[in-house]
């Protein structure tokens, strides 16, 4: 009774009920079910995008320092974030495909024909806006693919005559893609593009109420509410499909944080691979026209289909549309196949996939306020590895870095372990130690008679038993231990003491131990106290020619291909990171 009173109260003042009744009960053309299903699926995708989009806005932060971190937070930390972002991502892909399908199907059933020209154009507008949404959305994670994609896109626009440079700067928010470029893309993505997209969909539907979706639609009619019901059914199926794909894919793509200094091999999103490939056919001044005018002509062709059919024939209209779709698909496939068959690209791509996985793991512990890139640059695993790759791997080998056939300095797998030290003492001139570098024949084996020693001359090995060798190796390995290292199984203190005694008595003929030794004054064999510790490693990288590491002769020009000092090339921070990387990977691997 009371509820009805409220209803009457509202109805008397707004007439909403009567308006809804006449809106829903009106009989509308109900034929052309395929077109209707496609239109409903498009609308459902837009609905999912709007809903998940607003949800994502509640957690996303559009600034270079925080964009990647917030997307990572949504995807990997926030409860159900991966579902929301996954639905958003897949709904976008589906919308693009469905809008393209609607156009292809519309060409076959001639839904561009009078009186549906404006509906037809609105469908083209929907596809165009979807493309623009996907392009602006691609930048928002501020990851490698998005960032490099936008740099290239802005430069493509920049090739346009006269105003190109200006438009490029408008997109990037300045001469270089930065904070303003990101906020611009974001504003376009959440306000400027969705508004006309929704308006276009609304306009299509308003006209479809009168004309139906395609020729022949008015052969049947039904109350509008029935059409809405079937739309809802299609929508429910689309949502189920999106959930299924999201669950199957588990995570929507997120690459490593954007790094303008990196050697990332930029590729556009999949739906732009066609244009990417098209670029190969046009060089020089033709490039801009070839890659923007040609798609423009294709879009114009579809817009003019009503007249093309009238002037020429239906067969021509369909043939042209098929040529555009077929050509686009073929070029896209060619581009992907080319990349898949290019070992250089495959290798670079794999490297960046690894980097992305590492950054994603690292960020789970929290991202510092200066951003994900700064986080990467402070991490031994990422930055240390990068520094090693660029500065050390030309001579050293460690794990998958460096070339074992070309290496002229010690192999660092196992460096700091007793096994490495034992093998090194036994055969210092083996190719994985000094065999191919300037220290060849500088260190004698501790237990093998030198070949050059004339027969008969007295020779006494420095190490006389396995127990002694193990004691020395244990002692030296332990010298490098840091409190942060994984704890070592308990060691025999007697063996340790014996090792120290041998090192300080016998090895100091050439080496230093705690600053003493080198009786012959060679200045060549390194200090052994704290050998392999973090401080020792840092000092060795910074400048080998210091008393605490390899000492004065280390940089002697006569020592061809000697290890250079890096303290002028690298910051103290990078030296620390590469030292940490070498220690942790050396100690956790074996020769």
């Amino acid at each position, binding site marked *: 009774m009371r509820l009805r009173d409220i209803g009457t109260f509202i109805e008397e003042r707004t007439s909403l009920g009567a308006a809804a009744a006449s809106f829903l009960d009106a009989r509308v053309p109900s034929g052309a079910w395929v077109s209707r299903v496609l239109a409903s699926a498009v609308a459902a995708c837009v609905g999912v995008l709007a809903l998940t989009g607003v949800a994502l806005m509640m957690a996303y932060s559009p600034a*270079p*320092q925080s964009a990647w971190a917030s997307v990572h937070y949504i995807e990997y930390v926030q409860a159900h974030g991966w579902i929301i972002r996954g639905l958003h991502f897949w709904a976008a892909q589906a919308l693009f495909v469905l809008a393209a399908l609607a156009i292809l199907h519309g060409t076959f059933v001639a839904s561009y024909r009078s009186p549906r020209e404006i509906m037809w154009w609105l469908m083209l507008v929907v596809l165009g806006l979807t493309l623009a949404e996907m392009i602006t959305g691609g930048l928002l994670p501020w990851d490698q693919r998005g960032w*490099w994609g936008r*740099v*290239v896109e802005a*430069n*493509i626009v*920049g*090739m346009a005559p006269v105003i190109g*440079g*200006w438009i490029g*700067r*408008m997109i990037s*928010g*300045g*001469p*270089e893609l*930065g*904070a*303003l470029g990101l906020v611009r893309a974001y504003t376009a993505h959440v306000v400027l593009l969705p508004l006309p997209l929704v308006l276009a969909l609304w306009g299509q539907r308003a006209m479809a109420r009168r004309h139906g979706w395609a020729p022949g639609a008015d052969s049947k009619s039904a109350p509008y509410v029935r059409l809405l019901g079937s739309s809802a059914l299609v929508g429910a199926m689309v949502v189920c499909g999106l959930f299924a794909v999201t669950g199957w894919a588990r995570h929507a793509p997120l690459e490593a944080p954007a790094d*303008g*200094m*990196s*050697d*990332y*091999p*930029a*590729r556009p999103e999949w739906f732009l691979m066609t244009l990417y490939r098209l*670029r*190969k056919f*046009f*060089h*020089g*001044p033709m*490039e*801009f026209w070839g890659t923007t005018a040609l798609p423009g002509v294709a879009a114009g062709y579809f817009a003019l289909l009503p007249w093309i059919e009238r002037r020429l024939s239906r067969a021509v209209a369909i043939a042209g549309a098929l040529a555009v779709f077929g050509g686009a698909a073929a070029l896209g496939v060619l581009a992907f196949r080319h990349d898949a068959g290019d070992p*250089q*690209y495959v290798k*670079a791509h794999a490297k960046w996939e690894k980097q992305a996985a590492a950054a994603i793991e690292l960020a789970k512990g929290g991202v510092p306020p*200066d951003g994900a890139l700064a986080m990467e640059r402070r991490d031994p695993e990422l930055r240390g590895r990068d520094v090693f790759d*660029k500065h050390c791997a030309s001579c050293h080998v460690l794990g998958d870095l460096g070339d074992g056939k070309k290496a002229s300095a010690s192999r660092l797998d196992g460096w700091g372990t007793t096994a490495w030290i034992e093998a090194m003492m036994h055969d210092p001139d083996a190719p994985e130690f000094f065999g191919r570098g300037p220290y060849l024949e500088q260190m004698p084996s501790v237990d093998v008679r030198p070949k050059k020693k004339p027969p008969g001359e007295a020779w006494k090995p420095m190490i006389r038993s396995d127990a002694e060798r193990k004691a020395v190796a244990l002692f030296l390995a332990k010298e490098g231990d840091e409190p942060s290292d994984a704890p070592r199984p308990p060691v025999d203190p007697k063996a340790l003491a014996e090792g120290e005694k041998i090192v300080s008595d016998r090895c100091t003929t050439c080496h230093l131990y705690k600053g003493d030794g080198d009786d012959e004054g060679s200045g060549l064999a390194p200090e052994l106290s704290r050998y392999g510790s973090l401080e020792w490693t840092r000092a060795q990288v910074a400048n080998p020619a210091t008393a605490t590491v390899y000492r004065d002769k280390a940089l002697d020009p006569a020592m061809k291909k000697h290890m*250079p000092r890096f303290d*002028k*090339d690298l910051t103290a921070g990078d030296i620390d990171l590469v030292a940490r990387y070498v220690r942790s990977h050396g100690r956790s691997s074996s020769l």
Partner: protein
Amino acid sequence: MGDDVNPNRRGALRVLAVGGVVGCGALAVPTIRFLVAPAAGGGGSGRWVKTVPLESLTEGEPKRVALVSDHRDAWTLEKQVELGAAWLERRGDKVVAWSTVCPHLGCAVDRSPTGPGFFCPCHDSYFDAEGGRVNGPSPRGLDVLAARVEDGFVHVEFQRFRQGTPDKEPVG
């Protein structure tokens, strides 16, 4: 609506149009100027950045070196960060520097996998050991950056150039 309404409508529309033009126009001027402000560009001069010691470069062996200086991005000022990079190659007591930014569309140029020279992994532009264009879509050779040696250190003028044009046009 009857025809008799039209004169009224015409008058009302006129008021609406004048009001709309004045109001929107007044709003549009600062709004548009606000929006296009970041796009104000034109050639700028570069910034000299101290890099690595000359001795760390090998004759005939280009080395990728980071250009570290303060970086301003809208409201952010970052101290001593990598602004960009340059390929440096020692030639006696002098150094040649090339921007790592591909003159085609701005990807990062790398050493060529097939021999001396450089290549861009995005659209396969190849450059010779002097940075000259060999083949691929790049409209010009690699952009040479000014470089000088001072107190044993290589100083490079950090500068960006417009992409995709045959002429080397400074920007930023």
